[in-house]
């Protein structure tokens, strides 16, 4: 005991850290990664690895040479952006396109705003949408399922369920296959069960709360359910909505991004309901077959407004129910 440390209370800390939360999310992403490798083979791994390496590298280069500040690539957030970006891409996307997506995600969507915590929009989704607009053909040419395939750029391609629906052709995939992930699509989004395992893990570890995923999925189910009940010929069933496209991935991993989602339970509900409604609207009436990315980005834009107006339940603000 040389000198005593003087600091204000509290003098203990719960031991939580940014890194613990980020690596927790990464662990939760493992089942979906394994599923994508199983359904799409080596291409899924090539795209994911490229995306992660590119994201981490760009973050390092920007921090080292442009910002000349501290290097935070080990906090895990760049790795998550990399994995999530890859999960939103087809498994046969050329490497150079993946790298461009990573540059946009990290360079423009994250670091230009000041790094982790300051980005208004989800970086991985910005990267994905940039690629979708820039390379519409490559981004909507989906490999068909071929378990443990060794093909990458030469993989056979076919339409996704939602694209087929948009074109008015019949849906040939069973709900069970959709649930397991045996269908075409972005490499990480197909397996609902793998994503739900990830959700369970994050809820148990208390990394996220249930509000956002539940509010999104519930809204989509109710909204599309009403439409389906009114005209089953015209509108696909709510179960198909829930199990196809990027909805599970979006609701569980993209919309729950700490930085770009609201801070209060009530705010999370507003945000989740907004994403759910926008998703169904874009899927049904929009130009694109899939709308989860746009829905989340639009609601990201509303997050500051939601935080400004929606306040937590204050202690003693109004007399609660059992108060006399």
């Amino acid at each position, binding site marked *: 005991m040389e000198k005593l440390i*003087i600091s*204000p209370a509290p003098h203990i800390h719960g031991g939580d850290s940014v890194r613990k939360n980020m690596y927790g999310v990464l662990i939760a992403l493992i089942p979906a990664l394994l599923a994508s490798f199983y359904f799409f083979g080596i291409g899924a791994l090539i795209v994911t690895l490229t995306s992660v390496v590119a994201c981490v590298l760009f973050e390092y280069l920007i921090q080292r040479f442009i910002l000349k500040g501290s290097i935070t690539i080990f906090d895990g957030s760049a790795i998550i952006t990399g994995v999530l970006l890859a999960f939103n891409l087809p498994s046969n996307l050329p490497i150079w396109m993946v790298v461009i997506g990573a540059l946009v995600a990290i360079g423009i969507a994250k670091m230009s705003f000041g790094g982790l915590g300051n980005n208004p929009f989800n970086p991985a989704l910005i990267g994905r949408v940039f690629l979708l607009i820039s390379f519409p053909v490559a981004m909507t040419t989906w490999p068909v399922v071929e378990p443990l395939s060794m093909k990458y750029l030469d993989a056979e391609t076919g339409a996704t369920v939602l694209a087929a629906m948009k074109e008015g052709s019949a849906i040939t995939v069973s709900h069970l296959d959709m649930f397991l992930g045996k269908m075409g699509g972005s490499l990480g989004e197909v397996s609902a069960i793998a994503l739900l395992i990830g959700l369970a893990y994050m809820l148990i570890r208390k990394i996220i709360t249930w509000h956002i995923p539940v509010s999104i999925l519930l809204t989509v189910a109710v909204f599309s359910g009403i439409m389906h009940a009114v005209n089953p010929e015209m509108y696909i069933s709510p179960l198909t909505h829930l199990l196809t496209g990027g909805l599970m991935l979006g609701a569980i991993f993209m919309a729950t991004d700490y930085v770009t989602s609201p801070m209060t339970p009530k705010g999370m509900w507003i945000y989740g309901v907004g994403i759910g409604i926008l998703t169904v609207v874009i899927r049904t009436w929009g130009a694109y077959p899939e709308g989860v990315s746009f829905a989340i980005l639009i609601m990201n834009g509303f997050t500051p407004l939601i935080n400004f107006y929606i306040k937590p339940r204050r202690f003693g603000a109004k*007399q609660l129910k059992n108060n006399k």
Partner: protein
Amino acid sequence: MKSFRIGGIHPKENKFSAGAAIQQADIPATVAIPLAHYIGNPSEAIVKRGDTVKVGQQIGAGSGFISANVHASVSGTVRKIDVQLDASGYRRPAVFIEVEDDEWLETIDRTPDIVRGCSLGKEEIIQKIKDAGIVGLGGATFPAHVKLMPPPGKKAEYLIINGVECEPYLTCDHRLMMEHGEEILIGTTILMKALGVDKAIVGIENNKPDAIEHLTRLATTFLGITIQPLKVQYPQGGEKQLIDAVLRRQVPSGKIPIEIGAVVFNVATTFAVYEAVQKNKPMIDRVMTITGKDAPNASNYRVRLGTYLSHVVEQAGGIPEGTGKIVGGGPMMGRSLMNLDVPMAKGSAGVLFMRDDESIRKPSQNCIRCAKCVSTCPMGLEPYLLMAYCERNMWDELESNRTMDCIECGSCNYTCPSHRPLLDYIRFGKSTVGNIIRNRNNK
């Protein structure tokens, strides 16, 4: 299990000294009895240099409404009345006494017998409590007699006795309930009489099953007192949280508990009330916990006011090797001490030794907006936002986002994965906004 309804955390309890019986601390050679209190006006010294005093003799008189009397905790000669660095880090007036013998005022009943009956009326009880200089021993050291005199138009319905002791490490209230349970219940009855209420609830956190059982058994012979076990959740012992937990009523923003018919007293204060009213003993000592992960003997001592902490610590085995920080009080709300040469005051509940490696805060990172501070805040505030407003000097926004409601429990800091100094900023914001409000009201 009952608990408060918003937020809360569960830090590791580390109540090492829970089984250690209260020991009598040695009387030191000199004491410095603080005249200032945490809250309200300092008392005025009514003795002068060279006076001889007995144990229990009044040496300081409360000045103003919110102030309390101070009594000699030892017998001897007044050496000087001077400023002394106290546990809160300020230099404040104190009476220095050189100890000779241990001679008590004859009026004080020093026998161990429990005095059960109390025939005094409401006014007499309050006067005795006021004379004895009793202040709240839970931390805020608010004069007890003031709480017993509700403002006109307000009526107390419930007396709540706070035996929660939600701070990790501290066990002085726990030991007091185990060893002086009956006295505490008699004190409760006296306080009920003073307030004119017929219902009292003793709230105890569920990590003290022995105390709950002990008091529940004793309470069967007392009219109107119920023992309420509470969930182990910090800050269960916060006054507003405790009322919410036991009564399901929330004190409105900016108001005091009497607004919703509740008055809260800590168990240690209740015990002091018993001693003052039944044994004529003014507040001259209190129980404190000396503890820490490496403390040689985690223990509870009954210490005379004004005793230097170094004296008590020495008796408890000294400062452990590798201590990086010494906290006066518990780890959540206590203050870190520069050294142990500070006198024990009425609000000193413990001394906590922290290891080097747990003493240093981790560097603060960007806020990742995980919302964990919002969900743990027991007052329903947004700590991340309050800190951001403080950093930008946005005082109006701070006020409208109810920064003055913050009870400084530290749950936000404890939870933050980015190790942000949320409460440091909020305290700063509170003091600035508090000044702005005062200036506005004075205009």
